[in-house]
């Protein structure tokens, strides 16, 4: 007799329950007092130990430490545990740690369940010790009920398309593309403009090595053009994105008009000789890197006199002008400029009620990181070009961190006059034939100062780009300020929460060029690590159909936004009966299909509704004192 998988599973389950009582190991962590100062961990472990399904119940100072991990591994072997539960910090920290421990000890990782009794118990109920202890017991009971109902799961293997795409041809994009291509991974470099170089093209010398930005860009672009493994797509945007790690589909579209004026920049950047016009409109890549860069904050009309007077300019405007200006005295628009005021934090570090948000409507509360140093670099440049020029620097905090402090020292030696204005009281600019600035200086104990200047330079901040298609298509998360959000701020700075998508450069947040190349190389290293493999393991948390229950109503097919479900004949000899099946690499595991199935025949693996009902039911059992 041939049994279906389901029957085998049921049989196995039945055999198991008949033959043996489950043997669960439960471990309660003190977290060095973080938990045990509030939760009575030894009581928890004692009461849980009374459950007939629990073979081992222990508490320990640091479950995550090596002795803690070893304790679990040893118990699994010595006490023949079939399921393990650790009650400790958030699963976001250590679920994987313990899954690895149990799988090394011979169990399936899904025979492990994690219970959060720190972030969601001891830290939030610190004054209610009894209640916190009661809650911990209930949560662990829920986990026991749940884990006992969870069949072992295996990761789903997926073939890897061993080529990459990099979106954005600025410094980060070019660096990432080169790093990948130099490891023999074919790369599609997609740039929406007609030239490579991105924001580099607006810069002067790159601090602190004072490398010429344009030759830097040329150098990189030259390498990109010469690299046979890089396929360049200029004037191209990604119109549509689909798929998942291993196989992302990017549909490309040529832009109608370019946003950058070609004539200003070096020709060689725009003439990719080796690069005939590839007629590729659909790419398939295994992984891609977002290097879409930033926009510069555009001051609104009247902000510090911007657009009301031609002598109120942004810092990038000044840089561009100085890059081409060749006079002995500083003449701008026919006027000799003898005094300049530079105002920091224009469009960054914005405060609610004080500043007007950019057009996106979201206040840019972030510090833009690069403007302080660039402002002082340009102040020093003005001083060296025109030694008699008088410069006022109006700032909130001078943020020349690291070795960049030398620019601050240099500016002080150059007699730049620093005025610290109050955070919540921006300087006022009056245009009356001349430019007059009124502010208060904290350094001189809040003295009101007034100065007349010939030019005002606004150190504008870096703001996120308007969301391109790709972000919305794949639902790449963005943070509070609109920059792309990394998977973990501290530990996974170049990974997106969408697997296989990496972040480089200022798309993730303000960075200088060195920091952009660092993150680009880091993203390329991470992408390279998966792209050199022929297949990868995917999450098993996808929808599966119970072929016995499915009646072929197809409600799930219509509900799925990812086209992951199809209906087909059940099998030979049963023609007429149609049932659903799921493509696991297209399924994202959202569960939209689950709720609409009248037979409950489709479930997301790991989140079976019946299992979850058992969990919430176990939580409601009273704890006997």
């Amino acid at each position: 007799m041939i049994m279906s998988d389901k029957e085998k599973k049921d049989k196995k389950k039945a055999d198991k329950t008949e033959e043996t009582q489950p043997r669960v190991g439960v471990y309660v962590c003190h977290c060095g007092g973080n938990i045990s100062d509030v939760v009575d961990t030894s009581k928890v472990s004692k009461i849980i130990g009374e459950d007939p399904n629990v073979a081992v119940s222990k508490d320990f100072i640091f479950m995550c430490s090596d002795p803690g991990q070893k304790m679990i591994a040893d118990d699994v072997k010595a006490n023949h545990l079939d399921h393990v539960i650790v009650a400790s910090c958030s699963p976001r920290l250590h679920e994987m740690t313990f899954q690895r421990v149990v799988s090394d000890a011979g169990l399936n990782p899904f025979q492990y369940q994690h219970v959060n009794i720190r972030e969601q118990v001891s830290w939030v109920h610190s004054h209610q010790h009894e209640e916190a202890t009661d809650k911990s017991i209930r949560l662990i009971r829920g986990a026991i009920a749940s884990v006992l109902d969870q069949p072992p799961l295996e990761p789903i293997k997926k073939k890897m398309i061993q080529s990459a795409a990099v979106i954005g041809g600025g410094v980060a994009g070019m660096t990432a593309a080169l790093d990948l291509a130099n490891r023999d991974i074919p790369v599609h470099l997609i740039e929406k403009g007609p030239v490579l170089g991105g924001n580099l093209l607006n810069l002067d010398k790159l601090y602190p090595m004072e490398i010429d930005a344009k030759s830097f860009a040329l150098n990189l672009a030259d390498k990109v053009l010469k690299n046979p493994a890089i396929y360049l797509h200029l004037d191209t945007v990604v119109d549509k994105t689909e798929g998942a790690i291993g196989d992302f589909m990017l549909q490309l579209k040529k832009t109608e008009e370019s946003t950058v004026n070609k004539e200003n920049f070096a020709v060689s950047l725009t003439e990719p000789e080796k690069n005939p016009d590839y007629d590729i409109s659909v790419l398939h890549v295994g992984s891609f890197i977002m290097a879409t860069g930033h926009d510069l904050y555009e001051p609104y009309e009247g902000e510090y006199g911007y657009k009301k007077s031609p002598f109120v300019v942004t810092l990038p405007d000044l840089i561009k002008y100085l890059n081409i200006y060749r006079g002995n005295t500083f003449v701008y628009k026919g006027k000799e400029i003898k005094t300049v005021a530079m105002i920091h934090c224009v469009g960054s570090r914005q405060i609610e009620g004080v500043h007007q948000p950019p057009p996106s409507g979201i206040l840019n509360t972030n510090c833009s990181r690069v403007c302080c140093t660039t402002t002082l670099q340009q102040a020093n440049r003005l001083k060296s070009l025109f030694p008699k020029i008088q410069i006022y620097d109006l700032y909130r905090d001078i943020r020349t961190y690291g070795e960049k402090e030398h620019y601050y020292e240099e500016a002080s030696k150059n007699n730049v006059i620093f005025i610290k204005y109050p955070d919540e009281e921006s300087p006022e600019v009056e245009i009356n034939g001349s430019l007059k600035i009124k502010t208060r200086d904290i350094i001189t104990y809040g003295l009101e100062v007034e100065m007349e200047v010939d030019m005002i330079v606004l150190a504008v901040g870096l703001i996120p780009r308007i969301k391109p298609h790709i972000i919305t298509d794949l639902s790449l998360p963005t943070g509070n300020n609109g920059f792309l959000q990394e998977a973990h701020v501290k530990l996974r700075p170049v990974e997106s929460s969408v697997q296989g998508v990496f972040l480089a450069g200022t798309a993730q947040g303000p960075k200088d060029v060195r920091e952009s190349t660092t993150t680009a190389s880091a993203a390329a290293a991470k992408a390279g690590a998966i792209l050199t493999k022929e297949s990868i393991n995917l999450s098993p948390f996808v929808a599966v159909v119970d072929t016995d229950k499915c009646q072929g109503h197809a409600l799930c097919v219509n509900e799925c936004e990812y086209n992951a479900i199809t209906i087909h004949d059940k099998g030979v000899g049963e023609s007429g009966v149609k049932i659903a099946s799921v493509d696991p690499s297209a399924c994202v595991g959202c569960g939209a299909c689950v709720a609409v199935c009248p037979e409950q025949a489709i479930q997301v693996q790991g989140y079976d509704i019946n299992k979850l009902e058992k969990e919430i039911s176990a939580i409601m059992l009273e704890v006997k004192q």
Partner: protein
Amino acid sequence: MSEEPRILIITTTSCSYPGVDNAGQKHLEYSPHSYVLNVPDPVMFPISFYLKAFDLGYDGIFIASCGTDSPFRKTYDKLSARIDELVKEMKKLGIHYSRVKLTAICTVCADHFVKELKEFSETIATLPITEVPAVESAGMESS
């Protein structure tokens, strides 16, 4: 133990679970009679699941969704529609509509979460205790 209402909090892996964690990291305080059940997206739950929870004795269900920030396509629209249906069903069974609440909690919305949960809990505490008629869970296997 006190008579405080018991609340089932449904969270999502990408938004509200980290958000609830964030309340912990900030050492905020909320009712200990609240229990988190985490899923990829609450859109997976049929109406019967919520009714089952009331049946089990939960006094309220707090759905902390991703709102429009959901990483999944169109799930929030579907979820809100389902909760509207749920409320109608609850009315039929004599369960007060305030016992279910759909919110959106982001990864760092700790303060917002605590405030919403507190209000929810206080609202429920003022409601008369309802006897929830037993609901047959469609998926329960007989064993």
